[in-house]
């Protein structure tokens, strides 16, 4: 039995290609469909109505709609790593080999054990869980919640990495048109013909919107043909970009819209190198929302069975896809559009056995049993609709056997995107629906059914007029002829009848009873209603249910619908894959890499790298035979201190500061003084934030009268530059100062150790003897026969040390050259770990101490803050909380027993003190193993630490049980007199 419900092609083929057959499976069973089908239309064509289960009661469900508003027909599409939960069968474009499975059921869709919830529904009324499961207290996490969590959720998600790629981009246009129905097409034609840059986006894979689902004419051709011709005309315009399968998901500030293009969802897998989906950020001068309208159902008892659809969806399946959902069909309507559905179905050879029209009067449909003043009061059928109970105008009830029912409660304009800036829609009693309010996103106009202009003529006209108005066009093209039927609707929100359940939000199983209970308990604000009952919080975000829910609440409270209010829609318009929002920033490409000039050399050596921000720095370089990282680091430290070591320090920020006020400027931004620094010298600088906390530190050299080179920490290179620009432009705009970053222009190496000078003498062309180039000297030099370079005699390691810089392209070669020419000194290249060991040995502050919470005083550098001049942070650094005599001070720490272990982050306690906060003395900021001293050493912030030098305390790590007796020492634990660095 294949495609038993496909309408004979002779009655109108629909927009499917019957010449080609596509094979697919649903729950393991094979089916066939055609190109142009959705998964839902193809399943319906095969007589499959049951496609899912509801969230709470696990009620059997089929599709309610034929579009993206679908609450019921959710499936797990594809398998394995590409499994996609909660996918609406109504928008899945059929492809050959498609695999889908039902979800949220066990063991099978037809027999779902969780269907027991439906029988127990009386106990699961809205908000029941707030009133129970409280005793005994410990049972919530152990018993109740695990059961609830397992039962809840919809589809299941794979644990495998998504194998597909996602792309992003930016588009710019004069006019963005959202939706390619009659209004959108006419707007795009109007703007496109005027030569404007237009983007026309539609979520469907076929443009035309509702015209594809209708039979009436536009001009002298069927609407769908007019749409196709219009699309063809637009496609010839170079100034127009047509984007099918593209959902505009949100309106953001200043004309920026987010849109997701489903590039390859209609293919088994994306073509190699191509994305599955692309996120486009569209920068529009103006935009027109022409998103159409969504039909809403009417709440009546058991209105959720498979086979009960929106009347317009029944019509769409018949007209567009050539599918009759049932053999015997009835329509239940409160408006004239429902009658149109009945006529269209009849024209497709469907047996329309009755039209149940809740209204009285008016003309009767010819050739159809048209029951006026009647209502559907109940339905039956286990896994699909079998019959309906109708209460006629005279009060008599009648059962009618049918297998499909179309319900029309009126049409809701798709105002969603218009309310993304929190504009509240307003109620239009003429169409019994909400239309866009007045304070939508600036630059966004609304046209067509989205604006409540429901006829085809009105859509074409408002589409054209919106484009003319948005772009202030001088010419307004003529419109094709089209139907202009008035809206005739008498609101009916729910059918008052017996005690059964009438569904409002089908996915979340919110019924009229739940709204009544919310009212009874005084959750009457629409927001309370939503939150208490979960109305509108399912994957369809209430596109079909919300208005009914609030109308029912309005009835209960005796307020009007406008008085009752409405909740607003928020982005996204329909759910968006997280992969598309992330784009290419994932895995190793989450953030770009920054590689140092010595990276290639280090990789050759088998170096271990560490992430420092986006930089990859050499952490250590293991030698053959070294099995543990400490062996490598100890060797690097010892070799440096014994002879000479080289470290790539390019990552430190470098800022060129020039101008006649450069010195004065530095005096303002540094706590200490730089204007007095002689040319050819450098100085350690301490930079504060305005709140007096240490911001950054580094060495700054005076290269000329009006020329300084500042270095910053690696971490703060960007923020320091930003801060300097703030000072320069906003605080002291008349200073003659120019700034430019040179961080990446220079490859810079630290060369440290007793033989540092000897090694450099083999490289540097000039005299660098102690006399010619003393401690804290700085200057432009040349190396290796004339290459321009910079030399700074500064030391982080405490050794005789220099930093030498060459243009970055020569960095790799310089390193190799230093190693080759200095081979006799056995130079070692050391990484960040050894660097850390040596700076801790010397008591220099770095990341652990520069934590944004510490003052110069805390670091033992209080005297560096000059009060003789104004500088950033000087005044506020004098506040009492920052000058506490017994505040934290930087100290050195060593274990009393050389085998004693330390851990950074451990806290200080006095001996015998209980581990409670009142006894907390501070913490270890940095810890290393000192191969020279032969034991762990650390730096730490200790309360009144400067007064505790020589005392014994404990270092406690309560996370690991570590408890080590330590001696508090000066932070300068190695060569405290600094004899080595002046050597």
């Amino acid at each position, binding site marked *: 039995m294949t495609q038993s419900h496909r309408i004979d092609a002779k009655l109108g083929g629909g927009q499917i290609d019957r010449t080609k057959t596509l094979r697919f499976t649903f729950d393991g069973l094979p089916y066939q469909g055609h190109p142009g089908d959705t998964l839902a239309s193809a399943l319906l064509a095969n007589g499959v109505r049951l496609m899912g289960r509801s969230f709470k009661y696990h009620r059997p469900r089929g599709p309610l709609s034929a579009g993206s508003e679908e609450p019921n027909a959710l499936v797990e599409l594809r398998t394995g790593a590409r499994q996609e939960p909660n996918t609406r069968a109504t928008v899945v474009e059929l492809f050959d080999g498609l695999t889908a499975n039902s979800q949220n059921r066990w063991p099978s869709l037809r027999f779902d054990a969780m269907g027991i919830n439906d029988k127990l529904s009386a106990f699961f009324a809205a908000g029941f869980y707030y009133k129970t499961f409280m005793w005994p207290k410990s049972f*919530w996490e152990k018993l109740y919640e695990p059961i609830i969590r397992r039962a809840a959720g919809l589809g299941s*998600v794979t644990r495998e990495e998504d194998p597909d790629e996602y792309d992003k981009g930016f588009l710019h246009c004069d006019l963005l048109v959202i939706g390619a129905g009659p209004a959108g097409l006419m707007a795009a034609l109007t703007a496109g013909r005027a030569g404007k840059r237009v983007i026309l986006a539609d979520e469907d894979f076929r443009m035309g919107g509702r015209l594809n689902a209708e039979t009436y004419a536009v001009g002298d051709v069927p609407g769908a043909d007019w749409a196709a011709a219009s699309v063809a005309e637009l496609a010839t315009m170079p100034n127009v970009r047509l984007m099918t399968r593209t959902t505009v998901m949100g309106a953001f500030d200043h004309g920026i819209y987010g849109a997701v293009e489903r590039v390859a969802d209609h293919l088994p897998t994306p073509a190699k190198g191509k994305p599955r989906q692309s996120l486009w950020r569209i920068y529009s001068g103006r935009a027109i929302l022409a998103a159409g309208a969504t039909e809403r159902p009417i709440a009546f008892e058991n209105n959720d069975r498979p086979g009960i659809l929106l009347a317009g969806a029944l019509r769409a399946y018949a007209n567009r896809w050539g599918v009759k959902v049932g053999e015997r069909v009835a329509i239940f309507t409160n408006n004239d559009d429902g009658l149109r559905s009945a006529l269209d179905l009849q024209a497709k050879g469907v047996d329309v056995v009755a039209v149940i029209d809740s209204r009285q009067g008016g003309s009767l449909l010819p050739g159809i049993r048209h029951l006026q003043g009647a209502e559907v009061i109940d339905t039956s059928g286990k896994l699909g609709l079998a019959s309906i109970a109708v209460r006629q105008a005279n009060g008599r009830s009648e059962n009618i056997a049918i297998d499909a029912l179309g319900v029309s409660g009126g049409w809701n304009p798709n105002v969603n995107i218009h309310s993304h800036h*929190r504009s509240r829609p307003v109620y239009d009693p003429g169409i019994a629906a909400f239309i866009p309010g007045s304070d939508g996103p600036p630059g966004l106009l609304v046209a067509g059914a989205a604006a409540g202009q429901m006829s085809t003529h009105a859509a074409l006209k408002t589409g054209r007029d919106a484009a003319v108005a948005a772009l202030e066009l001088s010419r307004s093209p003529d419109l094709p002829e089209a139907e202009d039927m008035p809206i005739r609707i008498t609101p009916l929100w729910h059918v008052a009848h017996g*005690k059964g359940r009438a569904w409002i939000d089908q996915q979340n199983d919110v019924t009229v009873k739940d709204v009544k209970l919310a009212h*009874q308990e005084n959750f009457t604000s629409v927001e309370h209603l939503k939150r208490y009952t979960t109305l509108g919080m399912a*994957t369809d975000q209430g596109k079909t249910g919300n208005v009914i829910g609030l109308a029912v609440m309005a009835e209960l409270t005796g307020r009007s619908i406008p008085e009752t209010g409405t909740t607003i829609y928020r982005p996204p318009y329909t759910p968006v894959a997280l*992969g598309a929002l992330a784009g290419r920033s994932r895995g190793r490409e989450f953030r770009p890499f920054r590689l140092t000039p010595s990276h290639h050399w280090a990789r050759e050596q088998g170096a271990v790298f560490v992430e420092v921000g986006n930089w990859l720095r050499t952490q250590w370089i293991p030698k053959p035979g070294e099995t543990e990282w400490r062996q490598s680091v100890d060797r690097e430290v010892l070799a440096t201190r014994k002879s000479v070591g080289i470290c790539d320090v390019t990552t430190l920020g470098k800022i060129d500061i020039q101008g006649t006020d450069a010195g004065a400027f530095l005096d303002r931004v540094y706590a200490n003084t730089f204007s007095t620094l002689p040319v050819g010298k450098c100085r350690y600088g301490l930079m504060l934030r305005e709140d007096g906390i240490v911001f950054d530190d580094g060495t700054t050299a005076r290269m000329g009268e009006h020329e300084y080179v500042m270095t910053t920490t690696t971490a703060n290179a960007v923020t320091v530059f930003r801060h300097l620009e703030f000072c320069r432009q906003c605080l002291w705009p008349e200073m003659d100062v120019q700034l430019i970053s040179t961080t990446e222009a220079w490859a810079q190496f630290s060369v440290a150790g007793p033989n540092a000078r000897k090694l450099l003498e083999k490289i540097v062309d000039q005299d660098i003897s102690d006399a010619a180039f003393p401690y804290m000297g700085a200057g432009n030099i040349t190396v290796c026969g004339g290459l321009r370079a910079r030399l700074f005699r500064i030391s982080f390691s405490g050794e005789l040390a220099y930093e030498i810089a060459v243009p970055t392209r020569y960095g790799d070669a310089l390193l190799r050259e230093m190693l080759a020419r200095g081979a006799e000194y056995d130079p070692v290249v050391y990484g960040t770990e050894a660097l850390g060991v040596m700076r801790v040995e010397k008591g220099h502050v770095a990341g652990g101490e520069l934590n944004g919470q510490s003052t110069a005083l805390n670091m033992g550098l209080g005297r560096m803050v000059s009060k003789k001049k104004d500088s950033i942070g000087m005044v506020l650094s004098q506040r009492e909380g920052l000058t506490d005599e017994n505040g934290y001070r930087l100290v050195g720490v060593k274990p009393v027993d050389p085998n004693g272990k330390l851990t950074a982050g451990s*806290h200080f306690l006095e001996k015998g003190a209980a581990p409670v906060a009142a006894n907390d003395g501070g913490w270890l900021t940095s810890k290393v193993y000192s191969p020279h001293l032969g034991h762990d050493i650390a730096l730490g912030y200790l309360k009144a630490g400067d007064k505790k030098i020589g005392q014994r305390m404990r270092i406690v*790590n309560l996370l690991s049980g570590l408890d080590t007796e330590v001696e508090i020492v000066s932070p300068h634990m190695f060569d405290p007199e600094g004899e080595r660095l002046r050597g």
Partner: protein
Amino acid sequence: MRYSGFRVIAEALTGHKGWKPVWRDPDPKPDYDYIIIGGGGHGLATAYYLAKEFGQARIAVLEKGYLGGGNVGRNTTIIRSNYLLDGNEPFYEFSLKLWEGLEQDFNYNAMVSQRGIINLIHTDAQRDAATRRGNAMILHGADARLLSRDEVRQMYPWLNFDNARFPIKGALMQPRGGTVRHDAVAWGYARGADSRGVDLIQNCEVTGMRIENGRIKGVETTRGYIGAKKVGVAVAGSSSKVMAHAGMRLPIESHVLQAFVSEGLKPLIDGVMTFGAGHFYVSQSDKGGLVFGGDIDGYNSYAQRGNLPVIEDVAEGGMALMPAIGRVRLLRTWGGIMDMSMDGSPIIDKTHIEGLYFNGGWCYGGFKATPASGWCFAHLLAKDESHITARAYRFDRFLKGLMIDEKGQGATPNLH
């Protein structure tokens, strides 16, 4: 009326006819002893504890919209007490302890669920900082564990362990951290306050304050003037607006923080997780949605909505951490207005106007603080002195240099 499982069954069998309104809708009286401005979590908790724990009466809560419509109704529902600094940790631990007994206390199931929170570590420096923090937590009587990479992998084997830009090196865990059904917190406190005689007055916006001789006399509202002996302000993102009625400027900026929920999924994530190398944190609600968030948008805003760059940034963080969620769909975004303070920590203090008290500056950490904030604010209002755990939350800490700056970002609210 008392809620219980038996009651639910009895009502189910009798057509749910017996459920009573969870709160009244009283008209405002001419005057009260206490007016709490703000019917969000903090305001409702304050009123509840004022009545229940401090024996006070003649209390009103004035709410400009609907109860629980502020940040208590638009957050990512996380509770934890994993703070570092002495000024903060005792307070948040007090709050966590109150959460642990809350449902039994106010007879409402707010689904307090302590499934644990882990803060992932990606660098050695982060491990050092986590060690410092974990120790501080334990010193203050809270719970903390440092997890190795393998332990994290055992919990969540499908995180990105093999191809990460910033590899996971471990985590700091607080087993007692977790989530709470946020709306239920507001409703539970509201119900508890209402049943103790507190007037909860909705749709009542404060438009002015009557201050005479340095003393508050009452407030002007959209529902008329209401007199009060004491007025407590707990309005989060609207703090500057309301306090401007008293002529005050605050060390606070209002910023929008977006939050996100995915479509419902079968269980994937048990506890709460934060990514340490980007702006992303996530948990999964009992209903199945992944609830997640990231950084604030970063500019002053009262708009309760955000922009696309932050949405993308958060998704990038999510994908970097959990490569399996590429096909999971974002269902809904929303925004709340955060009262971002100058050091990232709150203020619960008197003002220079007698009888006017302030509670704010919660940044994006206000939800977890709800019980303690209410308790401590009630304490301050009733006794005119700070609760022992909230003594550091003073206005003058900025003048005195006693900031409580967990992140070390200084006077830059959008970086806290």
